[in-house]
């Protein structure tokens, strides 16, 4: 995701750590973090994903003044599209990160997107699957590359079936 400014804030790190159920004080308490040799509160390894909040074009967040495809009075807020669940049928297939250093409170990142590959595969439980790759480079306030993220998304031709017995 392309982001001009992704400020790494302690409150946001705290909420994220709570959401993934991680009580590690390194994500909450600057004193404990420093006593462990860290520069202060750091972010968990998957935190850059939360840059979605700061990406103006991020498709999976309601935008002010625009219709949202989730339910209100009806099951969807937009005309159902053809091809399965439309926008909702995209799933996350893979996620990879390379780190130069952990993110810390006070960092201000920018993210740029590089083109990735696309390919197709026949799936046992989901029909034809269209994969697409997105590479995002996150740089800090000094222009240093801190995290490279490679995400693989898949659009399925039908909802993925549950395994037998589920």
């Amino acid at each position, binding site marked *: 995701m392309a982001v001009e400014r992704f400020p790494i804030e302690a409150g*946001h790190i705290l*909420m*994220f750590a*709570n*959401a*993934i*159920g*991680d009580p*590690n004080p*390194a994500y909450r308490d600057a004193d404990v*973090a420093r006593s*462990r*040799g*860290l520069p202060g509160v*750091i972010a*968990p*390894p*998957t935190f850059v*994903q*939360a*840059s*979605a*909040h*700061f990406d103006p074009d*991020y498709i*999976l*967040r*309601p935008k002010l003044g625009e219709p949202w*495809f*989730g*339910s209100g009075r009806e*099951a*969807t807020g937009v005309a*159902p599209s053809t091809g*399965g*669940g*439309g926008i*909702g*049928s995209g*799933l*996350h*297939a*893979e*996620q*990879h*990160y*390379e*780190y130069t*250093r*952990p993110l810390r409170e006070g960092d201000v990142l920018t993210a740029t997107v590089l083109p990735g590959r696309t390919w197709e595969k026949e799936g046992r439980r989901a029909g034809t699957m269209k994969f697409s790759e997105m590479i995002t480079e996150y740089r800090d306030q000094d222009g240093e590359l801190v995290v490279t993220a*490679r995400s693989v998304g898949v659009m399925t031709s*039908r*909802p*993925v079936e*549950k*395994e037998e*017995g*589920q």
Partner: protein
Amino acid sequence: MSLRASDVKAGDQHEAVLVDNLTRTQIVQYAGASGDFNPLHSDEMFTTQIAGYPSVFGHGMLTMGMAGRLLTDWVGDGRLRRYGVQFRSQVWPGDTLTGSATIDALREEGADHLADLVLTVTNQRGEVVLTGTATALLDG
């Protein structure tokens, strides 16, 4: 607080329950924190009637985040050089997930001691929901 290369060997394993009886509330919490508000994770009406799934399900990234804790609890804070996963199967409300990380290899790169790890997360039915690999910097 970090793992020492001299204290571990290839094949060593670390296992933990990542979540017991995943709640819809935790999935909503993850949506709020991550900014991924895909209705598939919180909107039962959309997910069952429009998308055709039996219920809402967890973000793959929630599982990756929980599995990340398994790694950082073991190797230490801020020690990961690389962390990557494949999402194998969906995670549903009520699931209990167990993660297992194994040291695949220990190696040195310049002055750095590195551990390559492999990772598996299974649900209460024994189905693999996530597989992954990571590389961590260890103390010498």
